[in-house]
């Protein structure tokens, strides 16, 4: 049972880490818009040199 003494603190650290990651994600606006980024991956940006007619 002594293994618990290590495993439980480890699990607590993991929870803390995931909460920190979540807070960071929210603070950096990752949840502001859930629809538009889905479109971004469908259409990649071409390199600027290839774009015609952009001023």
């Amino acid at each position, binding site marked *: 049972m002594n293994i618990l003494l290590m495993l439980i603190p480890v699990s607590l650290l993991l929870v803390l880490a995931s*909460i920190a990651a*979540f807070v960071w994600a929210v603070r950096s*606006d990752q949840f502001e818009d859930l*629809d538009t980024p889905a479109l971004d991956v469908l259409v990649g940006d*071409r390199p600027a040199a290839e*774009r015609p007619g952009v001023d």
Partner: protein
Amino acid sequence: MTDCKHCGESLAADARGAFCCDGCAAAAEWIRSADLAAYYDLRSQPAPRVQSQLQDLAIWDRTELLAEHAHPIPGGREITLLSDGMRCAACAWLIDRALAREPGVIECSANAVTGRIRLAWDPTHAPLSRILGALIRLGYRPFLASGATQEVERRRTRQRTLIRLGVAALGSMQAMMFAEALYLDVNQTMDLATRDFFRWITLLVSTPVVFYAGWPFLLGAWTELRARRVGMDVLIAGSSLLAWGASSIETLRGGPHVWFDAAVMFVFLLLAARMLEQRARAIGHARIDALARARPAFVQREGSDGSSQAIPLAELQAGDVVRVAAGEVLPADGCLLDTIAQLDETLLTGESRAVERLSGAAVYAGSICRNQPIRVRVDQIGSATRLSQIAQLVERAQSQRPPIARLADRVASYFVAALLLAGIVVACVWSVIDPARALQITLATLVISCPCALALAIPAAISSAHSALAQAGVLALSEHALERLAQITDVVFDKTGTLTESRPVLGRVQTFGGIESAKALNIASALEQGGSHPLAQAFAGTPSTHAASERRLIAGVGVEGLIDGRYWRLGRADFATAGADDGALWLGNGKDATARFEWSESLRRDCATTIAALRARGLAIHLASGDAPARVASVAQRLGIKTSRARQSAEDKLALVRGLQSQGRVVLMVGDGINDAPVLAGADVSVSFAEGAALAHRASDLLLTGASLNGLDAAINIARRTRRVIRQNLGWAIAYNLTALPLAACGLVEPWLAALGMAGSSLLVTLNSLRLLRQPQRSAADEAPAPLVLEHT
């Protein structure tokens, strides 16, 4: 090809090319040349129509405006704008890409859900007006959001809610895991030290969930208690604190049982349900937010030299003279400088008929100037205006909820009181029967029968219905719109601009007395300049070189005015030329005819299918129009409408509606245009087009944002489905509570199961409401044939 390739509006029969107007063509050309044509594949809704006339954008560069609305960031400034044109994620994508390419833009993020655009730019590199010019070219009009500080506050609140939910989710997951270890120890073989170690760890994990994530409930409970009221939050906070506190004591003294898992699960699931509800409501609100702009952002101030200049409303001062164009809203209280003005004071008095004000009379902010432009000397501004005082009253009224929701609140709060009493009784009885289980059973009773589902049943359904409506292109402006829409039995349509396209097309021009047709057109166009009647739109394509003075609109008949000192009338034959009305538009001086304009109008593309669909729903359809009998009959016949009336004044239409109402029918009025306002106000529910006269919006309960009637059928469907969902929700919530309470009181339910059952019931109600968000099946209107064109000669 019958639709504009850009905005999807149906094209006039004689349109050249694939676009409805130059604006759309230019936008499409720009999108193509900027290599963003993928937009057309990504979008799920057609683009907004591009307005070709240019706005005065110089206003956006003013330092006062920037100081109030744009806050400095490293390297530039940031502003949050509202736009009413964003309809799906592809719009946001297009705006992001298009603006990011403008020189001077640091960052741009558009959000289609909230209708907001966050724009960071470098003012030394490019003025804001140039960047917004690009936005307008694409058909998205920018409006000022409520101010920088409120915007930042709004985002921060949203983020805090999300973090609370995240903490609750992760924390309760972990607490459940530890609790599971304790539950699995069925034979009590775990040694006491390990058991207590687990308990202490669970206490550690569940404390932030109860107190940080559950803070909104604790705060709500405190507010309710201070107001000497027992509501939902008291019960939620009470139960979770009871479970957590009792468990902590048990942990301390090494008692037989802990219920941390019940406490955390309760908090997490309720938080999730509440967040879903708030989100659904926020979507609906965002759309309305972007459209509800009762006061103008900018006003035309007259300088001492007689020139006029656009300035932000905030800059207006008492003593200034402002010019208000016909159809526009007065920006401030003041005193009329012109000899006579026709004002619509619906917003202030509820009287929808225009009132006449003479020179020197007091006029009020929020009234709408009709017929001719006026000049006003400003006396009171901002919060000192009568409108602001009324607005505060309205805000208070609007924070009240629909009658049915209020009823549910009251029932729920009695229920909570009864429940607390029941809890005490259960506790007393069980402490006699079996003191060891008393606490556990009381807890289960309180938790399982929390009437959260009952409280959620109506708001959740109503808020999802609102966002479903917004998706269908319908905005509900009044709180009882949905309730009444579900009950309607009759629909009364206006014709011009409602069943037919709002832009009639000018046909053959005949002239009399040797005048050239170009000259006649020029004069007619000057008379119709800035007019908001649908027929005026026919002349929008022929710019005029003349300017009409003393223009006056006579509703339902025509328009009169002076051009180069000569008196002109344009309208029905009996008005303009003293001849017999033949349905065409005549130009004359009241006696002699100068020209005759033929015009055609096309039925809205989906109008036949919409009317068929409404009839299939068992609704009686009526047509009441101010137009000539022949035209009305032809439209009625094409659409299969049996009861049609022609040459109806606003009073006639109102009488028709009142007559139907007196027979116990519930009437929906669909209208557009200036002379509809009283009828829209008189009907049980009213619908108008967002592109129609601003006046009609004030009186209507629902607004169709698209150019098609399609949304109408969808809205009725949504209203009826909402009514059904509300009944299901209420039925479920009541049945659940009535079954669960006795079971728990008899000691048959463990606290963790109670938490699961209660939260599951709330989630079920929320999910049932979210069903309303599912897109109704696409109607046959999408494959409708080419528009029917009605020739009027």
